[in-house]
């Protein structure tokens, strides 16, 4: 299985809670190429984790479409989603321990994660190959989990997630609570998975160093794609309705309600801020 392409069109998700509705996503249009590594950024409550959860098929969107490979997730039944999860789509939950069964060894956890795929007759890589791919120390494969360092636990969480060689790997803060060294090891593991298997990798992170390690970043703001970073350069993204979210520093200079002029100049569009209301 190589990486899968992920496409969203007008993706909207609304949470219903205690008598009022909260729009976590207000129309996300996004294309992630197969085999791409992407980081989702944004302030708390921006909708990053919601988007990741929708990618994982753990939620159904209130509106819009999600295509993972050729499958539109919103159209799949629960049993079809079960089949897709863990095989084509894998997820690393925030907090390494949440990804592991505490009473099994590392080898046992990877084997457990491969169980469903095996029963469906799907070929899975050997456990040792998976552990080796992420750089998990082989000597700790059969020991109890509470003897592992936080970094090793996170590596194991990644190994468990990719144990069925998925086309898409989703990670929710995969490097949180890790020191720099361990963080880098985990990022290397993600890169290795992407490099070796072509798995598309999408992670949510608050860590700018993690974002910098990803070739592409998407910043979610107020439920929309606010900006995009490629190879270290940041871009604003024009949304489907033509709106262009300004980065924060620009927004500070051009507050909401400001009047701007857009004109084409030498093949480039220039935005000019009007100092005064021309009708006054």
């Amino acid at each position: 299985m190589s990486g899968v392409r992920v496409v969203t069109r007008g993706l909207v998700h609304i949470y219903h809670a205690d008598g009022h509705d909260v729009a976590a996503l207000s129309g996300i249009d996004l294309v992630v190429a197969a085999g791409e590594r992407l980081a989702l950024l944004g302030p708390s409550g921006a909708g990053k984790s919601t988007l990741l959860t929708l990618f994982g098929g753990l939620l159904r969107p209130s509106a819009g479409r999600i295509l993972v490979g050729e499958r539109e997730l919103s159209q799949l039944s629960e049993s079809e989603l079960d089949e897709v999860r863990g095989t084509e789509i894998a997820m690393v939950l925030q907090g390494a321990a949440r990804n592991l069964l505490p009473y099994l060894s590392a080898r046992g956890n990877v084997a457990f994660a491969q169980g469903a795929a095996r029963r469906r007759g799907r070929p899975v890589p050997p456990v040792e190959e998976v552990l080796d791919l992420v750089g998990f120390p082989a000597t700790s494969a059969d020991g109890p989990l509470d003897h592992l360092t936080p970094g090793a636990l996170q590596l194991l969480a990644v190994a468990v997630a990719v144990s069925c060689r998925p086309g898409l790997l989703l990670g929710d803060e995969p490097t949180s609570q890790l020191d720099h060294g361990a963080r880098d090891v985990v990022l290397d593991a993600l890169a290795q998975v992407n490099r070796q298997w072509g798995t598309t990798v999408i992670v949510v992170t608050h860590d700018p160093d993690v974002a910098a390690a990803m070739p592409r970043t998407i910043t979610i703001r107020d439920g929309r794609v606010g900006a995009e970073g490629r190879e270290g350069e940041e871009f604003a993204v024009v949304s489907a309705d033509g709106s262009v979210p300004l980065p924060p520093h620009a927004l500070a200079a051009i507050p909401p309600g400001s009047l701007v002029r857009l004109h084409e100049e030498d093949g480039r569009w220039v935005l000019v801020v009007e100092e005064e209301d021309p009708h006054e």
Partner: protein
Amino acid sequence: MTRLAQTWAAVRYRRSQSLVLVIVSALVTTCAVFAPLFVRTLEQGLLQAGLVERDVADTTVVVRAARTTAEPDTTPGDLVAVMPEEATRWFHDGVGMTTADTRVEPRDGLQTSPLRLVARDDICAHVEISVGRCPEAAGEVLVSAPDATAWGWGPDRQFEVVDPSAQPPVPDTPAAPVELTVVGVYESIPDPDYWLRTQLDGKSGFPLGQGDSIVPAVDDFVTSEETFASGWSEASASLEFPLDRSTVTLSTLPVISDSLEGIGRANENVTVSMPVPDLVATVVAGRSIVRTLVPLLLAQLALLAVTVLALMAHAAVEQRRPEIALARLRGRSRDGGGRVVMAELSLTVLLGAPLGVALALVVGDVVRRTLMPAGVPFELRWPVVAAAALAVLGSLLAVRTVSRPVLREPVGALLRRVPPQASRGLGLLDVVVVVVAALGVVAVVSGDVEGPTALLTPMLLALAVGLLGAALLRRLAARAGQRALASGRLATGLAALSLARRPALRHVLVVVTAACALATFAANAVVVGSDNRTARAELETGAPAVIATDATSPAALAAAVDGLEEEHRDVATPVVIIRPRDPSAVPTLLARPAELSSIAYAVPTVGLEELTPPVAPSIQLEDGEITGTLTWELDEFRTGDEPVGKAPQSSTGIPGGDLSIDPEPVQIGITVSTPDGEFLDRDLAQVPQSSAGTSQIRAPVLCPQGCRLAGLWVRGTDPWAEHVTGRAVLSDLVLGGRPLELGGEDQWLPAQGADGEGTQELSGAGNELVIDFDTTGRRVFSPVADVPTPMPVILAGEPPADATEDGFTLIGLGGRPVASEAVATADALPALGGSGALADLDAQLKVGGAAPPGSDLQVWLGTQDAEVLSAVERSLAAAGIPVSPATTVEQATGRYDASATGWGLLLGVFTGLMALLVAALVVGLVAVTSWRGVARDLAGLVVAGTPREVLRSAVRREQLVTVVAGVLLGTACGVAGSLLALPLVPLFDRPAAVPAPDLSPAWGIIAATALVALVVVGGVALVAARGIMARAVPERLRESL
């Protein structure tokens, strides 16, 4: 790694929780398996106690036929055919016996004593013939060793006895005597299986009352069947078939009983005594009670255990939400994800099953060895296996059912770090339980549900109250917590908020409520049942100890009791129970009311003093002649001149003239009662029909043993005098050289006579008696006022059939009808139960008389001290009163305890203990399953600066509030459940109208149970609180695994 290995790893990882689940599962299995085991054990116990352990005589079929003129030659062999063919396989071969009653003169010149001749199959093998040989020919006899010693009898001694059925050759001449020759001397060899109820000896030398004389008793003479070959047509033949105990099993019981159906009905002359069908019926009735009572008692415990298992399984599944989520996240379906967790929980249930079976077997064996009669076998039958399987299936189903909602949740919900809040109110299942409980209570109160089925109501009620209490606790705790925090009471606030937030603590409340309710109900049922059995035993026995005697003279018995040593006299009282032959007649209990009230049980307090009203002193007459002077004045009398009719026509045909007949005198007499209770009339004086006159009185008393003056009567003897009225004065009355004082004040009761039968009034003083009379010819009687007439009684039950406004008639000493009146009524009387009359013994002793046949002459004692009983028995025997070993109320209570209901209700002890154990387990399990999260929260508060002492106090309070609330609610529910359900639970195998069951709560045991629950469950709660607090360390915050 195989799936089993994964599952085992999960079990071992949470070993404490797994262990508690195993134990709870074991408890469910124990309850299920113990039920059929206990039922079977009780059934075998009933069989042992009801049949197998009874005296052989109690389970023997006795076929008896008296020889008649139509069948003068009946022998035991003729009775073999009476026993049905299909019944013979259950009984041993019959033991034949022929007996005949006659009289024998122990020594020349002595009066004859009653004698029984006995011929019995194989008798010589069951006696030790110390001298001589076994009788073979007709007329040969063995005499008993005590008789041989007392009378000097030996081989070749000859007796002449009378065959009562023999016809004399010449009318009005004695029949030819039958010669009996002694060929040996015997001593009985005790062998109850052979002798059954026959006792040849033990009578030698005992004094027997025979009319006015006493004769010594003589033991039976053993003879051969040849003796009865001719004559003896009043003999009695019998054939006794002892039950073959080895054939008696629970399955053969009904067959044995059915095989005796109709036995003896074809022969009018045959009587059959067969207690076996009644005994079988008792065992069968007991089985029916056991089969209903035991499962329903255990069903409550099983319901509690299953509830706990379900709650614990639910909590365990909630705890495993992340694991289920992981399984779903890694591609497993809903069912596949559920199997991961269900495999672990199912394994713990399965591990608990063999443990539960083993525990049930151990407890069952302990019960069998300690409570059951010896000989009850240990049986492992298919219902036990089926029950174990059912328990496992039920437990698995319960676990599966409560797990299902969580297993069906979407992955997103399972992944939430904070699980969805449970409903603030009652869930659907809770509502169902509350509704069912309410319906159950209504049904019980309205009588729609009867019988032991009502036993489920207390548990349902407790569960409903617990669920409601938990819902209420959540709201109250939330408000109380916020108020407490706002007012700075940190420990209280934390505890209250924790109670509101953590469903596990509210589960503890539900379980503790239900467990305490069950423990309270069970403990109360045990004590109430025991108290009622004791009360019934006390009423039926009458007193703490009862010595039955073979005395026939109540006066002799009373004298023997009065002659006891002072220390024993205070605790003993003579009692005579007269049981008329007519079963519908009212039996009479004659006793000394004052002594009875301090010695006997269930003595009525109202009316007791009225049984012994003040009376005049008795007038005892010695043998001799009463002398005195009679002076009379008549107002109305027949002079003799008045013609009374016409003389008959003469033989010549001349009609006769007016016929005059001399007037007859008025007769004055006395009635006396002998010590034997015989009433005899004696003439005292005659009053001629003249206007006045004087004469001398010389009236023999004719009482060789002395007698009591019962009354005086006047009777006109002149049939032609309609009325004779006047006054008679009997003065200077002397008997035996001493003045005979008949004229005392209040010495006489009003004259007894119907309207128109005449009147008389007695007055006078000293040895002068004045009689003002009006006689019409009928006898008018004035009783002496030394015995209350009518006899005052306290009546229990319906009065006799002849009762009128003026009273009724009871059978008294001597078998005489005694006019009686009820001065009070009672629900029950000691030893008589709900039907009988209590009267003063001493008053009846004055009247005299022997106890009628079928009466019981007993000595009641106010103590069960063995030494005192033995001493009293010895004293009575020394006074010539034959006694039987005392029976005690403890023995009677023991018989009731060894019954289906007695043993069945004892199960309450097991139920109560297990319920408390379950409650303690739940408290422990909740702590074990939830300590990590709680400890982490506490650690956070510690890091935030909250003093540890405050947190320690908060944790203790939150644990104890649920326990204390649960104990209080549970105790109240247990009491309510007892009031509802206990009236519908059989307390006896055979109910009786009296004493009425006292079902009032046994507050002592209820309080004790609550206290034990508080100590045990509260203790576990405090230990749990301490353990959680010890683990609330800052490092806990960094815990990820």
